[in-house]
């Protein structure tokens, strides 16, 4: 399992301050922070980050199935899960699917994974929440991702059972044509939705499993916290001490991904033989019950929610956030007007290099190189057709030279780039990510991250590549 939240945490007090001229009443919401995608992050890049954290957690699994759950997938018709799979360098004999359409997307995906027999399934949930400036939702949501694998081996928790209700209560909606959610009346949702449908589902599940509410050690209610969550727990007859406090304060509710983030967080804190009840709400309800195993402590080795929260840096620049989110139209000058069509033929041919960051390793001289070419780049070798695949994504790097470029086009100026030194005498000029001006220096330690490389506004397209980010401490 693994979790990811973008580095920048926009302080809600900064949001409230920006709106104080028109909506002084929002001041009360100005507590905590919201994780926000940088200009080069979206659901795919966050899903890759969470999935890498999941795969890097000790057991190097190769799932048979990859499900990506989100309501904010960047592509409506180009399978997003496939891009994630290729960025993870998973074998091509992989079943992939995007699961969307509801706040229950992640619990639905998790159920599909759990009901997949003995095969391993990676379930990734990610959400990049687009909210209208000045809305209440702008204060409550956050961008984040989490990933888990399901399967028979090395189980940290056993799936005991589930119950689902499908009921078309429109607590909010977003049509295919609209950018933002339309939220309905809060008290009606609480009284007739959350307080009715969730307890009903939980009761049905417990009855089905011949279990009692007091057997529940941990209750995770995605997207709900505070007083309503406590009221739901009480209505379910579950001790409020079992209730997870939610992730609104540090990063915000990450839409459909919230369920997976809560589950990852709960498993990392769990003891053996505990019952964890996960609830997803939205046009009905999914309730899933797990029982932790003797090896649940292994969950703590993963880069999980606490680590993702700790990696954040506070940000008070509301205007920059608006620009990152595409909510304000900044004049980027003539350099932004260049034609930037992607050659899909070239991409298809080179996609293992571009999406998977696969280079070459010369069998003859042992020099690694990116991109992989027919002739070895080592001037003392130069042999032809001697290169095997070499994965660059997990390589550590070091800054060899750098600049902060205020002239080149970037949606987060200055564009930072430079030569990066890898092992096996390889080097590559790359863009840097997640550095602020003044933070780069020769020898800075780097890790590779999958990000949006470039935009083609004319054709509504964007493409991905790898960037060099500060190495995790």
């Amino acid at each position, binding site marked *: 399992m693994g979790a990811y939240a973008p580095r920048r945490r926009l302080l809600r007090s900064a949001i409230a301050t920006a709106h104080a001229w028109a909506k002084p009443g929002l001041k009360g919401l100005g507590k905590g922070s919201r994780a926000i995608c940088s200009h080069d992050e979206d659901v795919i890049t966050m899903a890759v980050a969470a999935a890498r954290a999941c795969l890097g957690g000790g057991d190097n699994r190769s799932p048979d199935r990859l499900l990506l759950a989100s309501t904010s997938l960047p592509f409506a018709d180009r399978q997003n899960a496939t891009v994630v799979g290729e960025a993870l360098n998973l074998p091509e004999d992989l079943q992939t699917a995007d699961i969307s359409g509801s706040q229950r997307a992640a619990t639905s995906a998790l159920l599909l994974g759990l009901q997949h027999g003995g095969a391993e399934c990676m379930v990734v949930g990610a959400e990049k929440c687009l909210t209208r400036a000045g809305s209440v939702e702008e204060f409550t949501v956050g961008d984040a991702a989490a990933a888990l694998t399901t399967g028979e081996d090395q189980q940290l928790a056993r799936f005991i059972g589930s119950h689902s209700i499908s009921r078309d209560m429109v607590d909010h909606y977003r049509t295919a044509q609209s950018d933002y959610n339309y939220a309905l009346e809060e008290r009606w949702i609480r009284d007739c939705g959350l307080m009715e449908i969730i307890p009903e589902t939980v009761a049905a599940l417990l009855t089905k499993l011949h279990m009692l509410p007091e057997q529940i050690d941990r209750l995770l209610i995605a997207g709900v916290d505070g007083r309503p969550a406590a009221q739901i727990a009480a209505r379910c007859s579950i001790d409020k001490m079992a209730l997870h406090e939610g992730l609104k304060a540090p990063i915000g509710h990450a839409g459909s991904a919230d369920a997976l983030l809560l589950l990852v967080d709960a498993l990392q804190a769990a003891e053996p033989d505990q019952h964890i009840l996960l609830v997803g709400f939205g046009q009905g309800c999914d309730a899933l019950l797990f029982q932790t195993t003797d090896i649940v402590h292994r969950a703590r080795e993963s880069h999980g929610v606490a680590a993702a929260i700790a990696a954040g840096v506070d940000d008070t620049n509301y205007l920059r956030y608006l620009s990152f989110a595409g909510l304000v139209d900044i004049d980027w000058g003539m350099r932004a007007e260049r034609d930037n069509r992607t050659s899909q033929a*070239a991409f298809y041919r080179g996609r293992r290099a571009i999406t998977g960051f696969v280079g070459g390793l010369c069998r003859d001289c042992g020099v690694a190189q990116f991109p992989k070419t027919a002739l070895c780049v080592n001037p003392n070798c130069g042999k032809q057709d001697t290169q095997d695949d070499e994965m660059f994504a997990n390589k550590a790097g070091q800054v060899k030279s750098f*600049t*902060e470029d205020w*002239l080149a086009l970037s949606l987060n100026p200055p564009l930072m*780039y430079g030569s990066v030194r890898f092992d096996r005498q390889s080097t590559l000029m790359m863009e840097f990510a997640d550095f602020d001006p003044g933070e780069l220096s020769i020898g800075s330690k780097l890790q590779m991250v999958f990000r949006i490389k470039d935009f083609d506004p004319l054709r509504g397209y964007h493409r991905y590549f790898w960037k060099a980010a500060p190495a995790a401490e």
Partner: protein
Amino acid sequence: MASGIKDKVAIIGMGCSRFGERWDCGAEHLMLEAFDECLADAGIEKAQIEAAWLGLCYQEQSLGKSSISLSQSLRLPNVPVTRVENLCATGTEALRGAAYAVASGACDIALAMGVEKLKDTGFGGLPARTMGTFEDLWFPGVSAPGSFAQLASAYAHKHNIPMDQLREAMAHVSWKSHENGALNPKAHLKNRITKEKVLNAPMISYPLGLFDCCGVSDGAACAIVTTPEMAKKIGRAANLVSIKALQLAVSNGAEMFYDEWDGSHAMTAELASKRAYSEAGITDPKRQLDMVEVHDCFSITELVTMEDLGLSAPGQACQDITAGVYDRDGALPCNVDGGLKCFGHPLGATGLRMVYEIYQQLHGRTGERQLNDPTLGLTHNLGGFPNRNVCSISIVGLYE
């Protein structure tokens, strides 16, 4: 071992347009402006030109593909014309084509023209280009200043020089160019500036401020070349200028993808200059050269180039520059015409503009900025980026 080009080709005429923001005319007129001066200088008829080479880098934004624009602008008598492009070494490539043609005996008299007209595009700096196919999927979205700025971080680290100290030496480079440009009537920028102004300018690409960067100019420069024998035959024997070396080194990917190069200089400049010194029979460039015209696209480029050319010892360029070694009145004047920084940088013309300055200096025609009896000079162009580039070196001097 080939005998090389030394003294096989003479330059009998040169011309250079005024550089700058030439809103008054198009590229066709810039070429004509340079050519009129060149033809008058050579003292020949246009009909005597048997072949021509056109150097133009950004053809998409100005004259288009092919060599037709040169033939048409000068109304050449349907002679063979070839267009060449090799980034910032384009102008020198045009000269190389013409010189090789004359040296081979394929023709007696040839023209080399370089031109660029980019101000009409509306860009400050080089224009943004249409993205290509595979490489743009991964290559950073670099700008020219950003590419060269990296030299500074690597150079400062390698030689353990504090960035402030390096920036002061870089400021001296730009200050010197403005001092020299102020004495050049054809220069794009003729204003003097202080080093403080350089150091306090807005940052373009760390650590390069505005005045560490050359601009882009409109302009054209050209040369008419022939053999020394033909030059004498047509009465051009006095003060004859000949080509001593023409060399080019092109990156093969080692700097970009193989971690041997340290990022603090241009490997190709080292190689090309060694070959050029050998071709010209120069054993002690620091003493034998009277002047150098180097590719100061950015102040840091000029600084590291002094070491790549073997003129300053490794790590000593900062000291030499601030001590005034390369000032107009120093031991080895560099960019006495103002360089790319102030004479200007029309990419396709730049290499020929550098040769033009040396040629004019050898003839004693440069007025206030005239050096004391120079006999030998070197030009250097660096096209592309430090980690992937084309470096051209030419050496010209008085014919013995």
